[in-house]
């Protein structure tokens, strides 16, 4: 059974003078069944700049809230919005779509075709990808997170909020396309200095070096872990993101195997 609907692409133009727009998200609306969905690209692949990442994330969260609130359900509303917003974030005019029984499958197919950034192979997990995973894990668990945000004068990779406290987060990946151990040490040093300045407890998400990594990367990884331990900063790996996010939202994950 095919239902009639439409989709629209959200485009990000960081510099309107240059006019180079990037597709960042796809919105799908099934008018008959009154269903709307939004799928957002990993923002680290849209912009490597941390503060830009933060601004773009805020815009998309606002947009997602409007969609969830029942706005933008018909083509006239979308047309009006596409004329009104921009130039930083713009919206294509609605494009007709044939929507199958599984709305999410249709959303995924359209997203993969027209929005998804091309993945580079075997490049490891970059800083940006790790940040995307953190944001995704938190949003899935219902924990509040703001990527690329300031506390006072200090810029952090992300700020987690929950259980009546905020936690600045540092992302460090030794597994990207070209990890730079010295640069990572400088980033870790900045993070510890910044935490000291704002008197907050922090969290460090670290992707360890791969097995074939050069010795300086391994040494640097151990060094930073020691610094974090000395600074009483909790350190977790990517595998710890879901449970950490759940704990920040106040809903601990159930164990996979429950004893009777």
């Amino acid at each position, binding site marked *: 059974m*095919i239902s*009639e609907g439409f*989709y629209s*692409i959200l485009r990000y133009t960081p510099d309107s003078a240059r006019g180079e727009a990037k597709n960042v998200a796809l919105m799908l609306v099934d008018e008959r069944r009154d269903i709307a969905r939004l799928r957002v690209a990993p923002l680290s692949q849209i912009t490597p700049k941390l503060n830009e990442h933060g601004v773009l994330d805020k815009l998309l969260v606002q947009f997602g809230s409007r969609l969830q609130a029942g706005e933008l359900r018909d083509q006239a509303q979308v047309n009006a919005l596409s004329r009104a917003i921009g130039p930083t974030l713009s919206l*294509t005019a609605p*494009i*007709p*779509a*044939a*929507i*199958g029984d599984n709305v999410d*499958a*249709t959303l*995924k*197919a*359209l997203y*993969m*075709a*027209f929005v998804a950034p*091309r993945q580079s192979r075997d490049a490891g997990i970059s800083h940006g990808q790790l940040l995307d995973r953190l944001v995704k894990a938190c949003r899935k668990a219902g924990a509040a997170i703001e990527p690329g945000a300031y506390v006072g004068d200090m810029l952090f990779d992300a700020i987690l909020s929950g259980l009546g406290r905020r936690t600045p987060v540092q992302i460090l990946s030794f597994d990207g396309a070209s990890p730079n151990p010295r640069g990572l040490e400088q980033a870790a040093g900045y993070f510890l200095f910044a935490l000291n300045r704002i008197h907050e407890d922090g969290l460090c998400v670290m992707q360890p070096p791969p097995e074939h990594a050069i010795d300086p990367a391994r040494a640097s990884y151990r060094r930073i872990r020691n610094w974090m331990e000395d600074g009483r900063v909790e350190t977790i790996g990517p595998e710890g993101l879901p449970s950490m996010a759940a704990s920040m939202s106040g809903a601990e994950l159930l164990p996979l195997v429950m004893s009777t």
Partner: protein
Amino acid sequence: MSEQGETIPIGLIDPVGATELMEGGGRHHLLLRQLDRVPEETIYALGREPHEVAVTYSSPTRVACSDGKTYWLKPKAQRGLAVELAAGRIVSRTGAGPNAKIVEVPAVVFRDDPRLGRFNGPVVGSLHLPGTFSTKEIRVMIGSGQFDSRVVDPASRALVIATQTWLNVEDAQVRVGALDGRVYSVDHGVALDAQLRGRPTNVVVVSIPGVSNDLGREWAIMKMAVETIESIREEEILAAVAGMPDAPGWQASFARRLAVATWLIKRQPYVGDVMREWCGVMS
């Protein structure tokens, strides 16, 4: 090269009467009937790509489809969509080009632009190849230093030459991967038509800007391409013409499809000799 044989348009052939072309015809006939009973999984178009500029009647259109992939739609082909689809399936099987599928296009997909209503119904979709460029685009890219012609891969070039020669592709087109230099055969609307008896008489070589026409013309490389073509079984060739809608624009009658398959089967063993000679190797 041998003398060119008599040309018989496929549409005029009666597969029962054309005994010379129908060696093993009874078996092929039965097999194709069987294959026709196994329907290809239907995919349908979900939505077209956003148009940056006004489209014209001849503009190609890309759509996202229900199998999660993206296809270029072809609503008509000079010699019928049956030819376009069969050739697309064959080049996909040899690895010389993108797969082709029957794409059902619901009217809703182009409801906003009546000019594009021609895409509605069953049409042929050719799998989109991201990161590849046509020879026309490559010419421009070379001029601006965006394409390095040295990356072009001789093995895939040889495979495309051998496959397009087998299929007798006219107005042949290729696309080339900008990063890996892989060459792909695309657009097969004018192919499989002339019933040239005997071996192929023309080697089909598409010129790629900045690249010698002799790239891939080494038997050591070409041999692998020929082996790939020779490895395709009769059943696979028949499957390439099976399960097509007999809708307007398809020219997909059973007789015509059987004639196409028979012609391909008869032509297949000659490809090796023709390519060997082209590479300067005497058999």
